[in-house]
């Protein structure tokens, strides 16, 4: 039962009402709760998925979007392996706040965190933010990009699966890099700098 090989912490952030909780519910429980109330503080879900025949356990921390819970939600960023920044494609203000969120992530999250921009509610007719605008934004800030619909279950599964796969790959790479470093101390400095360069410049086209 407890035979998972990897454990990753994923934190969802974004303005209130963009559908963070619904995304998580759709993914973990396969349902779309219509009258979902506002999250208070933080909520927690788990899901174990299989990537390349390896079991990967995802701890999903679903944070409250409301301003007043900012202090507690920020404290969850630090330990996160991946941060999903969600906005509502039918609501311009939620998109306009993204730079603020990035600043916060910059400040509180670890610098190696995997960042994914998600435009939710693509089932809605009244789209305000075209896909390419979101894509541009993601590209500029070195993030992955995906548009989803929690209601229609569109791209939700894919979102988390890709995250799991990406995190796993990073982990494996990191492990393989770590091994020689312990063995030969002399080459470490060069190796290290290149590895940092690699991770920070990670491309953003894979998911979209």
């Amino acid at each position: 039962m407890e035979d998972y090989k990897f454990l990753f912490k994923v934190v969802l952030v974004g303005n209130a009402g963009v559908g963070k909780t619904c995304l998580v519910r759709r993914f973990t429980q396969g349902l779309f709760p219509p009258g979902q109330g506002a999250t208070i503080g933080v909520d927690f879900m788990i899901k174990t998925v299989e990537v390349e025949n390896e079991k990967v356990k995802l701890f999903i921390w679903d944070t409250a979007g409301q301003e007043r819970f900012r202090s507690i939600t920020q404290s969850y960023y630090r330990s996160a392996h991946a941060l999903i920044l969600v906005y509502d494609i039918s609501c311009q203000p939620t998109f306009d706040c993204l730079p603020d969120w990035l600043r916060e992530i910059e400040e509180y999250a670890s610098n190696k965190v995997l960042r994914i921009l998600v435009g939710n509610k693509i089932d809605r007719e009244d789209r305000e933010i075209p896909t390419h605008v979101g894509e541009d934004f993601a590209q500029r800030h070195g993030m992955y990009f995906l548009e989803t619909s929690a209601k229609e279950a569109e791209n939700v599964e894919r979102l988390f699966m890709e995250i799991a796969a990406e995190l796993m790959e990073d982990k494996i790479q990191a492990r393989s890099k770590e091994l020689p470093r312990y063995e030969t101390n002399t080459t470490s400095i060069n190796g290290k700098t290149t590895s940092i360069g690699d991770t920070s410049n990670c491309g953003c086209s894979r998911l979209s």
Partner: protein
Amino acid sequence: MAMIRCCLETEVPDVFETLVRKCTDPGCCCWCCSALRPRYKRLVDNIFPVNPQDGLVKNNMEKLTFYSLSSPEKLDRIGEYLFQRASRDIYRRRNGFVVIAMEAMDQLLVACHAQTLNLFVESFLKMVQKLLESTDPQLQILATQSFVRFANIEQDTPSYHTRYDFFVSKYSAMCHSNHNDSAIRKQIRLAGIQGLQAGVVRKTLSDDLVENIWEPVHMDKIVPSLLYNMQNSRYSSKEDATPDSPTEGRSDPPQFAETCMRELVGRASFGHIKCVIRPVLRHLDNHQLWVPNYFAIHAFRIIMFSIQSQYSYTVVEALMTHLDDHSKSSPKIRTSIADTLSKIISIAAGESVGPSVLEIINSLLSHLRVSVTRNQSSSNDEQLYQEALINALGEFANHLPDYQKIEIMMFIMSKVPYSQPDRVVSVGKGDVLLQSILLKSLLKVGTKYQTIHLNTTFPPSFLEPLLRMSLAADAEMRLLVQKIFHTLIDRHQNIIKLARPTVNVAQLDLTIEKASRPDVIFIRKHGPEIYLALYESLELASNKVENVESIYTTLALLAVELASEETVLELLRLVLSLQDLALTSSQISVSLKFNLHAIVISLLVLISYVCNITSLMDYASKVVEIRRKEAPHLLPDLQSQYDTGLSSRLAPALLVDQTVLSECLKGAGLDSGKLQQGSGYSSISLQHRHSWVDSAGRNSLADINSGATELDSGGSSPGVQKKLPGEELTFESMKRILTENNNNHIIEEEKRLQLSHLFRNAPFQDLVSKTQPKHDVLQSKLSEIFNTLSVDPRNTSQPGGPSADTKPSQAPAYEIHFPELFFHIKDKNGIWWNSVSMSRIILQHYLYNH
């Protein structure tokens, strides 16, 4: 032998029983090999009933416990197996079995010895985590209960730091539970708090080895979670005193969160306090809980009550820094923060000592200053903010020992910007505001201070600037200073009784105590300074009725507090000079003069009452009687406006007469000589007060520059200048005085020569006839001689000079000219003659002729 039999007896049917039972269970797929399974697995399997509703199989559980106790090396496998079973059951949603598995683990945990637990604990914690990960609230609550039980076990090496982060995160999340069912929500929240308290706080704090829960990562989760729950308590919405000690309540999330908060803060060491306070402040900011600030106060009270008292001032410090951070926020928020500060500062004050006290005061003062400079137009909110700060200051001072209060008062005084009273450049408006704010805070501190000895209350470095401030240009400010004096001088709660002048002293029911020795010494030393400052303060034309009244109160309090013979004289002298002031001053308005008369008589009545001098009392009441009949406006109450018809010229009967006073004093056996010495606090009396040696030395300078001498005494006795209102101290006028004096000298010299010439040349008979008469006619003889001198010295020196102008400017010069040692004679031209030199001339002449 018996032992073996016993073992066999229990063992054999056991195996058999298992087989039978397993066979009846259709869900068991491996019944056939169950007998071949390891023993610990069989034992574990046996504790589960067929039907989960039946609960744990008790006697089988005992067997398992016995087994694990007798072979502790198997404990880790038992734990592992139990965990595996439970996770399978969770996966299959057979919660009944999960509960049983958890119960079994609990029992094993309690039963086993601490040193053997280590390996078992690992699976136990995995189990707890597994349950917490599930979405079923019941399982989460169950897990928490087990975790708490685990936390209560004394353990050598806590081994759960690997899961630590998860526990903190999960329990914090549970504290914020938003379950639809309110009962379940409450339970989950309680479980969350419990998990934080028992498991995380209690368990990890008792051991240094485990992860540091004071890391901001953890505190930022724990503290807001607790606060969020506390927010719903009854204190958060209304003003209610926070109890000192926690009231243990485990059924109510707010109550329980509060208990947990107290425990957390109580365990915090110096370095960790900031880690607790910072999230608190951020939480209050984020949830906008500053306005209204009931919850903020509640939360901070809890912190202050539970914190280790030696650290309590760091909380105050943190709150002040937060105030700094909020310097851009609305005044409302700042007011609330300052108010919170004032509410908690008293709790901190008892413990803080040394530099931290001054630091706190200093930072409060600098906040005040910033507030003053920020908002010159001072909106209402800003004023409230300043008020709140001053309150905080007062609260803080209130809880300090007395000697520190004096220090603080001196400290505040040193921060007051003040200008020299004689400086033309006045202070800016902001400074005036700051002055008054600082004085207000000083007053606040002063009211908390209980004077014992005046000399400790008023060290010179404090008294001096205070007296200087009492002459400030702003009437409001002077009023404040007087109020400070009131509160500091009064020791017997007489302030209210003496707040307004009255002639019915007997009705006031004053508390009077004989002045102590140190006080008398104090007043002997500093009394003149104080009286002079008060006198000068009364001289100011901008005084209002309140000012006069407040000065009266100061004087009356002094009289009551220092009722001794020695001080009475000084006071009476002051009273007389006040009357003089009222009669002679050209600066103050008529109504102010009437006010002065009123306080003169009030003070006289009070002094005579306090010192119990009957004759003086009689005299005072006589004057009161006359005034009541003829001039009621000279009696209290004071008015700001009197009938315009009232003349400022007064009949002598209405006034207090110096000679009568001195007679009364003599009658009471007091030395009234001092009273006669001078009429009081004008410049003359001041010079008498200086030691004659001093003044003689100064005056023996050949070129007496009277202006200059007056200037140096100006600091302590500006009255000298006040006496010469029209005079300007310019270079020209100095020069004039100087040359004038020189002329005088020349003329005198001339006169002396003439005189000696006369004596030398006149026939002896004449001289005999002139000198023979008794000495008391010397003056008349001399004036005769002077009459022969045709030249008037003044007219020669300044032929066209307007005499009205020159006269006042020369008057002090004459007085200074001759030290008081000498006996002076004034001729009818207003020229002073030194009798010593005069008689020497006469004697010389006499000897010469014989």
